[in-house]
């Protein structure tokens, strides 16, 4: 049978038109960049591409060693983090009753702020790259766990029934149906994970480490050395883009055939008591783990506050009212940036994904920029964005939106590509226009991926807003937690962590409610029927 023309293989000339457009655009952007940098040289914001090239040439051995150090830690973290994320997803699928508890626990671990984990990891590991590897692993495991979970369930009901009808059990279903179905989703997760691992390793170096790209960044920014700062940012971004595409290529190589039916995850139909019960159970387990792990590693109560210490600090101390007031006002400041940024980032990501589906040519230009935007470490982008947009709420909102935008875009593009061929063929045979196809076939198919990224974006928003507050604006929870380094007020730090955890769970449940409501209307069965 002849395949529809828009996917038919064509004879490709050596340089495709898109490639030429891409190269020209890159040159044009470089020229603009050079011009702007030259014009604003006395303001110390932007380094010119020529200066960056000169710096890299002069310091190649140094940069190479730093890159190897950071990359090694990132690669180890990438491996362990993804293994953990995938194992957790497997456990959730094989034991469906544990899913919501596991997902909530995963979210809580992912939300642990670096300000708290960094010093503890350094005390646990001592010298070496243990903290960098662990922070890189923590940076990726949740963004792999969620898509893997969606993917492991993303097979039509009748396939499961078929395998079961031959008398096979869960393991056979796993091997024959679930694992193959999960590959495309997993590929999307791993793609997002690649830049995140590098970022995690760089931030891990802030805990006092052998010199990698993170250490060089701190040094360069303090030295007002623009060429160095931008060179490192460009290298980090370049490596991230390469890793992103390498993982993508492996994913495409494995994902041979487009799906023939709509593969939406089943809508959760469990009784409503469980909806409330699961987060409460997860919270209880989290509290037990918090107390238990700190006791197990015998961490000093001076900096490792237990749940009971936090309770005392907030409710049973003469200064409790003051502590609560400080915490509440910081939380409010943080939320005024985080919430608009979260919504803007999700909207932009999904919107651009839809736009790229209508006009695929833009993709050649915009994807590399989107990847680069996300890959430049937030420690470098946050101050730049704040310089550009001011130290008020706008700057912080933009930082949050940029952080969320990219993973959402990638996830939504993958979701759009999951639109069943059968349905696209039907739209084509009725001569339906691209808009109609988008709204009635592709967007509904995108929704599961969109909601997965809406969940993923919760911790990403928290990370972005607290980092921007820490490094640039000096307000909100991020700044409050960072001052612990000088005040040793670890009661406040752990109270803030607990509050962030609760807020994350609350946000997660809110997204789940919307997700259930929407997926009920656009659910797979109706479209596939």
């Amino acid at each position, binding site marked *: 049978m002849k395949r529809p023309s828009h996917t038919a293989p064509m004879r490709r000339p050596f340089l495709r038109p898109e490639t030429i457009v891409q190269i020209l655009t890159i040159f044009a952007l470089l020229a603009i960049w050079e011009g702007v940098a030259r014009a604003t040289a006395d303001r110390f914001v932007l380094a010119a591409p020529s200066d960056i090239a000169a710096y890299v040439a002069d310091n190649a051995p140094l940069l190479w060693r730093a890159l190897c150090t950071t990359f090694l830690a990132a690669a180890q973290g990438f491996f362990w983090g993804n293994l953990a994320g995938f194992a957790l997803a497997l456990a959730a699928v094989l034991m469906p009753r544990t899913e919501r508890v596991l997902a909530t*626990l995963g979210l809580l*671990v992912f939300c642990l702020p670096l300000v708290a984990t960094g010093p503890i990891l*350094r005390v646990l*590991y*001592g010298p070496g790259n243990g903290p960098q590897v662990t922070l890189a692993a923590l940076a990726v495991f949740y963004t792999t766990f969620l898509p893997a979970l969606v993917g492991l369930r993303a097979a039509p009901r009748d396939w499961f029934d078929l395998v079961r009808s031959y008398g096979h059990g869960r393991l056979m279903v796993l091997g024959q149906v679930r694992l193959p179905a999960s590959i495309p989703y997993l590929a999307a997760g791993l793609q997002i994970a690649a830049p995140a691992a590098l970022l995690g390793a760089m931030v891990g170096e802030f805990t006092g480490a052998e010199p990698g790209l993170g250490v060089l960044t701190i040094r360069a920014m303090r030295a007002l050395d623009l060429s160095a700062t931008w060179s490192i940012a460009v290298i980090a971004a370049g490596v991230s883009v390469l890793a992103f595409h390498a993982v993508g290529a492996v994913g495409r190589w494995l994902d041979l055939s487009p799906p023939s039916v709509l593969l939406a995850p089943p809508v959760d139909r469990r009784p409503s008591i469980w909806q409330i019960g699961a987060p409460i159970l997860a919270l209880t387990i989290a509290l037990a783990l918090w107390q238990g792990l700190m006791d197990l590693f015998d961490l000093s109560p001076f900096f490792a506050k237990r749940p009971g210490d936090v309770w005392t600090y907030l409710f049973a101390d003469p200064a409790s009212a003051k502590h609560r007031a400080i915490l509440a006002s910081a939380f409010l400041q943080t939320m005024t940036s985080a919430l608009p940024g979260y919504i803007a980032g999700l909207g932009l990501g999904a919107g651009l994904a839809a736009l790229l589906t209508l006009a695929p040519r833009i993709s050649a230009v915009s994807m590399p920029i989107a990847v680069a935007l996300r890959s430049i470490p937030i420690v470098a982008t946050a101050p730049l964005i704040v310089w550009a947009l001011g130290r008020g709420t706008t700057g912080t909102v933009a930082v949050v939106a940029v952080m969320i935008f990219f993973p959402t875009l990638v996830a939504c593009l993958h979701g759009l590509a999951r639109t069943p061929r059968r349905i696209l063929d039907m739209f084509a045979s009725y001569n339906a226009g691209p808009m109609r196809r988008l709204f009635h076939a592709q967007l509904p198919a995108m929704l599961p991926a969109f909601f997965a990224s809406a969940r993923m974006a919760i911790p990403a928003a928290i990370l972005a807003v607290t980092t921007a507050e820490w490094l640039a604006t000096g307000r909100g929870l991020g700044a409050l937690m960072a001052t612990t380094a000088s005040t040793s007020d670890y009661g406040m730090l752990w109270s803030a962590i607990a509050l962030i955890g609760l807020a994350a769970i609350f946000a997660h449940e809110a997204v789940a409610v919307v997700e259930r409501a929407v997926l009920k209307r656009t659910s797979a069965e109706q479209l596939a029927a």
Partner: protein
Amino acid sequence: MSFITPTRRRFLAGTAASAAAATLHGPAALAQSAVTLQLSWLHSVQFAGSYIALDRGYWSEEGLDVSLQPGGPNAPVEPPVVAGSALVGISAADYTAAAVNQGAAFRIIAVAMQKNPFAIASLPGNPVNAPVDLIGKRIGMALANTPVLNALCAINGINPSEIEIVPTQYDAAPLVQGQVDCLLCWETDLPVAMEIQGVENVTMLLADHGYSVHSQTYIATEDSLANRRAELVSLMRGEVRGWEAYQKDPEAAAELTVGTFPNEGLDPETQKLQAVRQVPLMFSDLTDEHGFGWFTDDTVAANVETLALLDTPVDPALWDRSILDEIRG
């Protein structure tokens, strides 16, 4: 945290080799007791006295195998010292006082920076030469340092509300870009960076206007002071010798620093300028008479007074000179 447990051993095994390469060890010698000195920041000439002690074998003479653990933006000094993974940490009197108020049992056993390095940096066209010049200016600083500015104002009779605080991260860019008129920073880093980049600047040391807070202080726990005294004395003796060698030739110390850390991206010119600039902060008539790291009841009393203004009330017993006394012997 649940993922840390099962994989930690494997990480440790996998990273053992790089860990050995990451920290500096003195000349190999068996039967030496291993101790860690936790630095307060990334490797730089700020800790050059320690590098000299390591390079010249001052510590191995004492039977001590010292590891220098670098700090960073997310590496507070107090936790590893409390946890015992570092014997001594390099902190500051205000940080230590706050930690003690939060229940940590620290003592300050020596003071590297007699004069506090906090300074107000400004540009020559719109300079801040005295506290009174701050009135009506926009100052870029971390909000966490607001108490420092308030204390300076209180000492010099200035109303802090007449100064506009702009929260910035710790770099010189906002001053150079004109977003602020002055910066609260260390005398030895951002002003040095600006000078190296060709940006002329003016600095005013807070210490010259009544702000008395010891900085780069050596802290140890009361437990170590009671039970690991010999190691503390050996560690600090090597440290004192290293810094006294530093005083004789700061530029050579800067060269040693750059040579010791070829992978850290240290700029030789910056390190030399910083090395020279920190000399008047670390050495004085007091140290010339009694040796590096010294403090007296009078300097401690001045600290207690300033710390009270910083809202960190502190007992003079926080300072414990017994280790230095033993070294002076």
